[in-house]
């Protein structure tokens, strides 16, 4: 009896470990440093420290699609597809491409645009000025 108990315990723990491991492999980083010298070259302003987890929590109602989107060629619209979240710079580059804004403008539009809107609606919001997102160390 005790042998079976131990066996089940072992299997249970193994499964839990496996689950946790997979969990960590797909989980998001807590904070990202957004600098992208690969796109911008020499940076004109200090890097942005972006708290991803805080945004996940704050935007839980709106969902990941509040920021993450892809352009659907068929409906000619920005759509959110779960599991296909990519970095902004995957599509947005140094220069604008058609209706797709350049990376800097994409960031400013998403970040400052949303923060200002939330401030206007007297909701919990983030920074809206240059130096509050790009603080000098």
């Amino acid at each position, binding site marked *: 009896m005790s042998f079976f108990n131990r066996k089940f315990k072992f299997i249970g723990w193994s499964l839990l470990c496996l689950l946790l491991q997979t969990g960590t492999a797909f989980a998001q980083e807590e904070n990202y440093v957004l600098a992208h010298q690969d796109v911008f070259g020499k940076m*004109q302003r200090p890097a942005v420290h972006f708290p991803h987890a805080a945004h996940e929590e704050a935007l839980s109602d709106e969902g990941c699609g509040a920021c993450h989107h892809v352009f659907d060629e068929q409906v000619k619209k920005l759509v959110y597809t779960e599991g296909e979240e990519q970095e902004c710079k995957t599509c947005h580059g140094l220069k604008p491409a058609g209706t797709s804004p350049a990376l800097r403008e994409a960031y*400013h539009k998403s970040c400052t645009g949303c923060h*200002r809107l939330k*401030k206007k609606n007297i909701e919990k919001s983030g920074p*809206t000025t*240059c130096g509050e997102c790009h603080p*000098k160390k």
Partner: protein
Amino acid sequence: MDLYELVRGPLAVAAFAVLILGSLYRALSMIKVGKKAKMLYPQASISGGLRSILHHLLPFGASYMRARTVFTVITFLFHMAVIILPIFLMSHIVLWFESFGFLWWELSKPAADTMTAVVVIACLFFIGRRLFVSEVRQVSSASEYLLPILILIVFLTGFCASHQWGPYRPMLIFHIATSEILIALIPFSRLMHMLFFPFSRAYMGAEHSRVLGAKDW
């Protein structure tokens, strides 16, 4: 309301509205005054007027400039920087984009810093000149001291906010608020020469040109 949002939104709109409507009002009143005068100007010459505008737009194009080398160099650099910098500064362009969604060519940071230094040095020079050069002091009114001081404050606080010197948020709000005061003052102060200089210049040039055969440059 958030103080930054107040100066960045409604007060900015108000400042530009005062600038545009005030300038229209000043221009219309000037036309009205001009029509009232029952005077004939038989000696007026259009080419003389245009040549006078051109000569006063060119560095060392007029004799008073040739007589004052340092003043001419400083005033021309000042006027270029004070106009180019606010329009082509990256931080300002980002704000225009936020509001209206369009972009234009931007200055590099070193270029912007150099232009700020030019404006600051020039304002100190202008204030000093009014204080210490007796012929200038005699024709200087209080507003002519206050305007370069205000421009100095606007550019210094802008520089400090950009480099994040001092308390960032109050500095930025103070920079925007003082800029808006400056913009709103344009139609109602000596800063109106931004729009009126071609007319006073053309008048002087036209008056002196035909009969007297004199150049006012």
